[in-house]
């Protein structure tokens, strides 16, 4: 019986707590009687008959007709799927997307459909490599569709491949992939890893262009999304939902298939990483000592390779299909069922260990900008109602924050770090440089032909943390490269106690502390 998440109040008998530090981890002691640790709920059991559940969902959708009834010979069918940024870490084969796409194709074949395109809905993310595509959709689908050019990646910079569909009442332009817009049916295959994903965001963001995205990927929207894991308090989602209405009104027919995963994140023998420290067996402790010692001696490149090859044993806990909004309501319930933890009140300090991976550095390097985005963007926003740290409090993160950049995946990030961050770290000032990066011809070329994130992407990473930057009084990174941390506009500290010392002139000498013991993922319901 999986136990729910809970808040543990640290006392003198509490053993030290695990903190992630990029490609490594450490144990830190939190001060007794004024610290609390939030542990995620244990993973829910996965569905037994996944293929059967998928078939059932396709034939018994929510608020919509069965998929087989929507297919007819001669139709234009487009299947769009979430890209390599999900799930984290990558799943064991067969991936959920493979199962669903094969089931949809079975239905399509039975109905005599010939014209099928399969598109990776990556918006302005990088293109996926062949190996990554094969992992996501499976070899059978890849070998059947890719050689014919029917399995490809969304290109947001190809004017011939985009269709402008209209504007929302707020003046937000809606422009998405043309093939998707003009199909008789668009089937979207989604993985809802966190509550931010899914719903209209799948199509309105995943298949959109810069012209559309800039209307909600900006500082104002992010500062008013409190948080973006909570659809009803999120300006990001309100904008996407408005765009969804434009999509519906202009005749785009979307059949949304959403899935949720349990939080079984770490394979043996690393499952101690999600366990409560006082429940570590002798074998777990040995594994911790062995791995943290050997990782300290391993060169960073090799350590990255090892970590990025981890395949998580997480599996599907629910699948629902049909009308976008109705489906998403059910999906969100499932996500919260797995991830929600009740927390009382805020504290002065929020600590978190930043792991080696975020959605934007799969098989890649976590550069300082992504460290900020993971901590202040994602982890800070894992809340409903109120942030875990009080306004003006201190956020402490642990990560080596090396100024290393992947030259193929993140070329515009290097220029962002050198040119923009050396001038300013204020998100509103940073926004002034956005246009030039978005329209640079070289970045556009790399996005379209190489495996690079779009020129504007580092700006989005910065905006993701803009609410946290506004909210917190100070941000400290423990164990990070000093020059890089300062470039980000944060305070470097060598040890946790130094960090508390540095925090004391903002929050005093006896602050209350919350530690977010993540991964595995969770959402704190703060009252």
């Amino acid at each position: 019986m999986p136990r729910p998440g809970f808040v543990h109040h640290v006392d003198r008998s509490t053993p030290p707590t695990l903190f992630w530090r990029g490609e490594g981890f450490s144990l830190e002691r939190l001060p007794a009687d004024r610290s609390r640790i939030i542990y995620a709920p244990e993973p829910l059991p996965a569905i037994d008959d996944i293929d059967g559940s998928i078939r059932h969902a396709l034939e018994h959708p929510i608020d919509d007709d069965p998929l087989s009834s929507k297919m007819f010979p001669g139709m234009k069918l487009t299947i769009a799927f979430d890209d390599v940024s999900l799930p984290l870490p990558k799943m064991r084969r067969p991936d959920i997307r493979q199962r669903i796409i094969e089931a949809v194709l079975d239905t399509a074949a039975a109905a005599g459909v010939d014209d099928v395109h399969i598109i990776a809905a990556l918006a302005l993310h990088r293109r996926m490599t062949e190996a990554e595509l094969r992992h996501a959709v499976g070899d059978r689908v890849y070998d059947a569709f890719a050689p014919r050019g029917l399995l490809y990646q969304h290109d947001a910079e190809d004017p011939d491949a985009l269709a402008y569909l209209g504007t929302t009442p707020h003046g937000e332009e809606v422009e998405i992939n043309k093939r998707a817009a003009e199909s008789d049916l668009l089937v979207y295959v989604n993985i809802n890893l966190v509550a931010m994903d899914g719903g209209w965001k799948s199509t309105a963001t995943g298949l959109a262009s810069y012209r559309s995205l800039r209307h909600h990927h900006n500082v104002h929207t992010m500062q008013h999304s409190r948080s973006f894991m909570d659809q009803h308090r999120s300006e990001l989602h309100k904008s996407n939902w408005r765009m969804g209405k434009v999509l519906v009104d202009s005749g785009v027919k979307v059949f949304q298939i959403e899935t949720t995963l349990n939080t079984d994140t770490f394979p043996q023998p690393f499952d101690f990483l999600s366990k409560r420290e006082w429940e570590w067996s002798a074998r777990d402790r040995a594994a911790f000592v062995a791995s943290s010692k050997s990782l300290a001696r391993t060169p960073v490149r090799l350590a990255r390779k090892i970590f990025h090859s981890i395949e998580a044993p997480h599996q599907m806990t629910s699948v629902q299909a049909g009308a976008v909004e109705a489906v998403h309501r059910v999906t969100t319930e499932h996500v919260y069922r797995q991830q929600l933890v009740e927390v009382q009140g805020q504290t002065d300090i929020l600590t978190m260990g930043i792991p080696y991976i975020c959605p934007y550095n799969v098989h890649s390097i976590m550069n300082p900008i992504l460290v900020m985005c993971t901590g202040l963007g994602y982890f800070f926003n894992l809340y409903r109602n109120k942030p875990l740290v009080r306004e003006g409090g201190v956020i402490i993160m642990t990560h080596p924050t090396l100024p290393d950049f992947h030259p193929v995946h993140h070329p515009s990030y290097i220029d962002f770090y050198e040119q923009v961050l050396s001038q300013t770290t204020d998100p509103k000032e940073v926004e002034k440089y956005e246009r030039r990066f978005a329209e640079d011809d070289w970045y556009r070329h790399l996005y379209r032909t190489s495996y690079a994130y779009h020129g504007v992407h580092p700006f989005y990473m910065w905006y993701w943390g803009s609410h946290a930057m506004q909210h917190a009084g100070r941000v400290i990174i423990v164990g990070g490269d000093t020059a890089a941390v300062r470039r980000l506009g944060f305070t470097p500290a060598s040890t946790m106690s130094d960090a508390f010392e540095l925090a004391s002139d903002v929050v005093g000498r006896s602050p209350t502390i919350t530690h977010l013991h993540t991964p595995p993922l969770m959402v704190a319901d703060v009252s």
Partner: protein
Amino acid sequence: MARDDRPNTGAASLRRLTRAVAPAERIATTVGRLAGSRGFPYRAPTIPVGVEVPKEASRLGADFDTDFARRAPAKAARSVITNGPVRLMVKALADPQIFGVDRLDDLARREEPPPLIFAPNHHSHLDTPLMTVAVPEPWRSSLVVAAAADYFFTSRVKGTAAALALNAFPIDREVTSRASSDRIRALVDDGWSLVIYPEGGRSPDGWGQAWKGGAAYLSSRTGAPVVPVFIDGTGAIYGKGSKRPRPGRTRVVFGHPLTPLEGESTRRFSARIEAAVAQLADESAHDFWTARRNAARGATPSLTGPDVTGWRRQWALSEQRRSSQAGLRRRQKRRWPRLD
């Protein structure tokens, strides 16, 4: 001096004991001190106040775990002796490429994976060892293969070797007696998975033969799902009538497990399994999407080949073999007909 004047032997022996144990004791205290000074994670964690740690289930008595006997060490012992050579031989001769194993993932993830009945097409004696290599865990270690009684079990030596190396059991090709089918059912009920060839014997001419209902019948009686399997290339490597095997490449494609529908007759179920294998053949020769569309239209190429006789059947077979991914590695030397 009287005997009683000697010192107290109890204290002396204690002292001797202490002296003897001293070095070991020194090591033990040093280790203890080191471990103690380090704390968690070198030492067991202290439990915080007010928290309940779940107790681990008892492993003695009735719950004694005997799985180990069916797992690695015991199997390793067996495999070193028998399986190792078999696998090496298969890999050398047949270089197998295995597809579709992910279709069995749902069953593999269960707490107690059910036994399966694998139903491949049959072209060569090589099919049987190939299956023992291709079938994934957890079924491979509890796999029994049906082997032709009148080939593998004609002598004690051959029979013992087949039973040991391949975990084979004898099956009559023409008529399946009641006793042997009961024996097979008992094996499945015990949790063993089966490889059984619905065609009965190997193909005589390279094309498939008519399918019999053995696998379908067993499945409906035992409840074990049938997994259609397509094997390609073994016919070219060591088909019926070949004197010796020639090394080549093979493909094994697993399909979705099938269970008989409510009230479905054995004949219908068997036809469904045969159609599934034909679709796998189509998928292997072309691709997944083509195979699905052909299946929907009823245009899946038949395993039994064109409806002609004589040389045109052979001709069509060589066409098909030439375009296939499996088969002999080197192209056959072209034999020019002698015209004089």
